[in-house]
Every structure is written in structure tokens, then in C-alpha cells.
């Protein structure tokens, strides 16, 4: 067991170094794609905490992603707050929305949960779409400047390579923290709830509270991804609150492998690179994406990592064992 963790650690560090070097040395275009893959990877990982670990199929996860993005954008554009204030406020607001939505959605389960999370995310989408004077409506809000790190390190986040490195650092911190959560007694309890709520209830666990805390964490982490996304593009629009993004998150989680640690990141990477690859050849990207949805469900319901499990070293496909 100890040796396995050692191998796991070495592998991880090695992988991250390769990633960091590759990201900084690649042509700008690929650095951009890798940045986006990491950001959407964080989003997918936060959704995976609900879907893969707790068994809560959220169909409105874009709510937290988008609301954090909009908060950051509105604070920095309309109220001229510093990026530290706007980004922190973004996280606070996404966790607060999760706190309210969690109260409503957790009264239901299963397919009702999907329906209600979808509807709740649409409330925010409706506000972003309709309230033109504040949110810019359909046009979104352009011109959001990236944070100035001048006081801390002599780095400009304007350069794609530096921004990639910053995102990678956030990514490592988030993955580390989530890995701790998933391997803590709390994480084991979540998987217990996924397998059998009634049994966990009998064992004396406060099932609702566990789920609620999972929703809060997932909302906050999705908010972090949303803020990075807005800084990356310098732009936020209702698309960041849409059902399309929520479903794409589900696709990433399932494509990579629900309940695994790195599966959702792999799924996000595949989707981001595939989109850019296919868009180069054809205008029919949406059809291809639709086919990917069908193929994933029909051919790889356990995801890429699930399909190749046992044929690769254990540490890569390790499930956070229940």
C-alpha cells in the first residue's frame, strides 16, 4: 500500500512537470487549449464529486460556474473592484447559490433532482439573459482584465504561458484538496450514500448534511473554474450558465470515468481538443458532439478509464475505493 502511494506520487509529480514544460513550450494555440482543458477539468472534477462520488446527477452545474464568472465580471467592470476582491466575491457567491439551491434540490432525488437542478440553473440563465443593463444580456460582458500579480511575483498574466502556469498551480491545489476530501472519512461516507442511502442512515450518518456539504464544495470549486474561465477569455456570456455547459460537464465526467480522480480531467481534455480539431475540418461540429454523446453512452458507459482499467498501471485508473 505504501509502495503504491510512493509510485503514485512519483508518477504525479513527473506528469505535472511534463505538463508544465509542455504547456510553456508549446505554440501559443496549444497552450491556450491546454489552459482551457485544465479549467474545464476543474469544472468536471467538481461535478464528479456530486455525480461520481455522491450519486447526485446534477443537470444544472453551470449555475455555479457562471454565477462566479458573472460576479467577478460585474464587480471588476461595473464597480471597479480589484481582481482579488472580485474573484473572492465570485467564490463566495457561487457557494451561497449552492447553499440556496442545495436546500431546494436536495428535497428530491434521482430524476427529479436532475429536473430541478436544471430548472434552478435556468433561473440564473434567465436573469443573465434578460437583465441587459447589468449583465449585457445576450451580448455578454467583454473586457475583463486578468489579475495583476505585480505585488507578489514579477509576472504578467497577459502572456499565455504565464497564465497557463497560474491555472496549472490552481489546478494542482484544487486536485490536491479534492483528493484529500475524497480520501477522508467524509469522502468514504459520500460513496456509502451513493451505494445505499438507507444503509448509511441506519449506520447513523446524517445523510442530508453529507450531501449538502458535497453540494457546497462542488459549487465552490465550480466557481473557481468559472472565474478562471472568465479571466482566460476576458469575457462572460449566458452560455456559461447554460444547459449546454452543464450537459458538457456530465459528458466529460462520464467520458473520462465517473468516480475516478483524473477521469473527468481526461474527459475535459478530450472534449476541448476534439472540438478544436473537428472545427478545423468541418462546420458540423455540433453533429460530431452529438455523436460523441451517443457513442459514450452506447460504447463506453464506464468512461475511458473504466474501459481500459486493468490494462494500465493501477495508479492511473485508481478509483477512490469505496
Amino acid at each position, binding site marked *: 500500500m505504501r509502495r503504491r502511494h510512493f509510485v503514485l506520487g512519483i508518477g504525479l509529480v513527473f506528469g505535472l512537470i511534463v505538463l508544465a514544460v509542455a504547456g510553456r513550450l508549446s505554440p501559443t494555440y496549444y497552450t491556450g487549449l491546454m489552459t482551457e482543458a485544465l479549467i474545464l477539468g476543474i469544472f468536471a472534477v467538481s461535478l464528479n464529486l456530486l*455525480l461520481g462520488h455522491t450519486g447526485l446527477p446534477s443537470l444544472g452545474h453551470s449555475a455555479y460556474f457562471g454565477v462566479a464568472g458573472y460576479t467577478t465580471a460585474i464587480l471588476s467592470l461595473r464597480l471597479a473592484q480589484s481582481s482579488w476582491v472580485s474573484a473572492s466575491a465570485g467564490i463566495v457567491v457561487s457557494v451561497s447559490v449552492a447553499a440556496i439551491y442545495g436546500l431546494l434540490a436536495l428535497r428530491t432525488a434521482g*430524476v427529479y433532482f*436532475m429536473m430541478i437542478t436544471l430548472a434552478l440553473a435556468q433561473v440564473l440563465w434567465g436573469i443573465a439573459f434578460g437583465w441587459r*443593463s447589468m449583465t449585457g444580456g445576450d451580448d455578454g460582458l467583454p473586457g475583463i482584465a486578468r489579475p495583476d500579480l505585480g505585488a507578489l511575483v514579477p509576472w504578467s498574466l497577459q502572456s499565455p504561458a504565464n497564465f497557463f502556469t497560474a491555472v496549472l498551480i490552481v489546478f494542482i491545489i484544487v486536485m490536491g484538496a479534492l483528493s484529500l476530501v475524497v480520501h477522508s472519512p467524509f469522502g468514504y461516507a459520500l460513496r456509502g450514500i451513493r451505494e445505499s442511502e438507507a444503509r448509511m442512515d441506519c449506520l447513523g450518518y446524517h445523510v442530508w448534511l453529507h450531501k449538502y456539504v458535497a453540494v457546497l464544495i462542488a459549487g465552490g470549486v465550480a466557481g473557481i473554474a468559472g472565474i478562471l474561465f472568465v479571466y482566460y477569455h476576458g469575457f462572460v456570456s449566458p452560455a456559461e450558465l447554460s444547459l449546454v455547459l452543464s450537459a458538457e460537464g456530465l459528458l466529460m465526467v462520464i467520458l473520462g470515468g465517473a468516480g475516478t480522480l483524473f477521469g473527468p480531467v481526461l474527459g475535459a481534455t478530450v472534449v476541448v481538443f476534439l472540438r478544436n480539431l473537428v472545427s478545423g475540418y468541418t462546420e458540423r461540429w455540433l453533429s460530431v458532439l*452529438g455523436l460523441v454523446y451517443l457513442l459514450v453512452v452506447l460504447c463506453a458507459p464506464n468512461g475511458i478509464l473504466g474501459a481500459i482499467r486493468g490494462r494500465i498501471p493501477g495508479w492511473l485508473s485508481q478509483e477512490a475505493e469505496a
Partner: protein
Amino acid sequence: MDFWIVQSLNGIAFGMLLFLLAAGLSLVFGLMRIVNLTHGSFYLLGAYIGFTVIGRTGSFLLAVVVVPLGIAALGLVMHRFLLRRFQGAELSQVLLTFGALFIFADVSLWYWGGYSHVLSKPAFLAGSLTIGTIVFPAYRIFVIVTGVIIALLFWLILERTTLGSMIRAGVDDEEMVRGLGINTPRLFTAVFALGAFLAALSGIIGGPLVGAYPGADFEVLLLALVVVIIGGLGSIGGAFVGSLLVGLIDTFGRALVPELAMFTIFAPMAIILALRPRGLFGRIR
């Protein structure tokens, strides 16, 4: 005063359109627990194909009869060969219908282009009715009458026929119905096709009012979801009341506070969800 009467009639007409759309979605959900995200695509395909059929033959009546049957066949194939094998796997079904939504949207964009098509009304409904000082388009009256007739038919089928009792029993307890020897997979496919039929029908009937354009599939899907959530999943009576409510709220919302048009629909839904998670007419199970 006239403003309120005309807008109320507009709201009721829109509500009837929503009912055609939401009734199928609600039944499909209530019976087989599928969140069918292609429901809006059936609507849009119905409107687009209806546009082409009317353009080629000039007959609105032909389109109303033939196109929904074609879309019902499409729904039948989709359920029989794609969704049926995932019965009970709700997340897989959501992803499948979402993938199909993208494909239908992209194919329609490719064939019909990116602009809005408005279906032409049949000639005998082109005029308007004048009652006192109020002028109201005849076509909207037609939509209201059609909606009421379909609702009555639906109610008769559900309450008075064997098929209806099988469906109602299936909504209440699918396992028990299967235990009684009823071929539920076939029943499911039939209801799914019926939902597609109604969605396409509302696409054609709504075509002269709303039009067919890229993105309409999403818009009507969301409106139908709101109706179903407000009314209660699997309840036809709930779908009827919910449709009228949403139709009226949306019409008045657009007329009075256009900035908050979307919000005026979703906010009441969130409030109803908070108070009654199963909707107004949904049953606790």
C-alpha cells in the same frame, strides 16, 4: 381594458400551444422517467418540415395530418432502438437525448439555414374577429379551440379507455403493471411516439405564430419543462393548468416588464418548487 382582454386571449392561445408541447413531455416523464431533451427538437422539426410541406403543396391541412405522423415514427424509432435498452438508467437517457438534440439541431441548421421561417396560415383563418371594440386574429381562436379539443380527447383517452388506464397505472406503479402481464416496453414506445406526435403538431400549429428558427428547440423545451415542473410530473391536468399559467405569465411579462421576460417565468417556478417539490398536481411517491 381592451389591453387586458386581448393580452389574456394571447396568453391563453400561447398556453394551449404549450399544453400540446408539455402534455407529451409530462407523460413520457411520468411513465418512464425519461427527461426527454429532444422534445423541443420534435417541435422544431415539425415546424420546419411543415414549412417545407406547405411550401411545396400549399396545403396546411396536409401538413397538420402528415408531418406529426412522420415525427411520431421518428420518436418510435428513437425509443425502440436507442432509449429502450437504457430503461431505468436515467443519466444515460439524458445524455442520449441531449446528443440527439445536437444532431437534429445541426441537421436542421444545415438544411433550413440560420434564419426564421414563418409558416403561412390557412386562408380561411387569415382574418380577424371583431367583438365590440376588440379585434382578435381568427388564427389564435383556432389555436385555443384546437388546444381545448386535444385536451378533452386526451382526458377521454386517459380516463375512459383501456390504453388510458394502462398508462395511468404505469405512472403510478410501473412494476405492478408489468407484473399484471402488460407489455410495458411496447406501451412506453407508444407513449413516446405519442409525445413526439403532439410536439410536432404544436410545432406546425404554432409555426404561424412563433415561427421556426435555430434555437427554438431549446426555448420551447425549457418552457415545456417549466410547465411540467409547475404542473407536476406525469399529470395531464397539471400540464393543462401549468400551460395556462405559464402562457399568461409569459405574455403579460413580455408586455409589462420586457427586461425580466425570462425571469418572470422561472421565478414562479422556483417558488413553486420550494413550496411543493412535486409541482401543483404531482403526487408524492
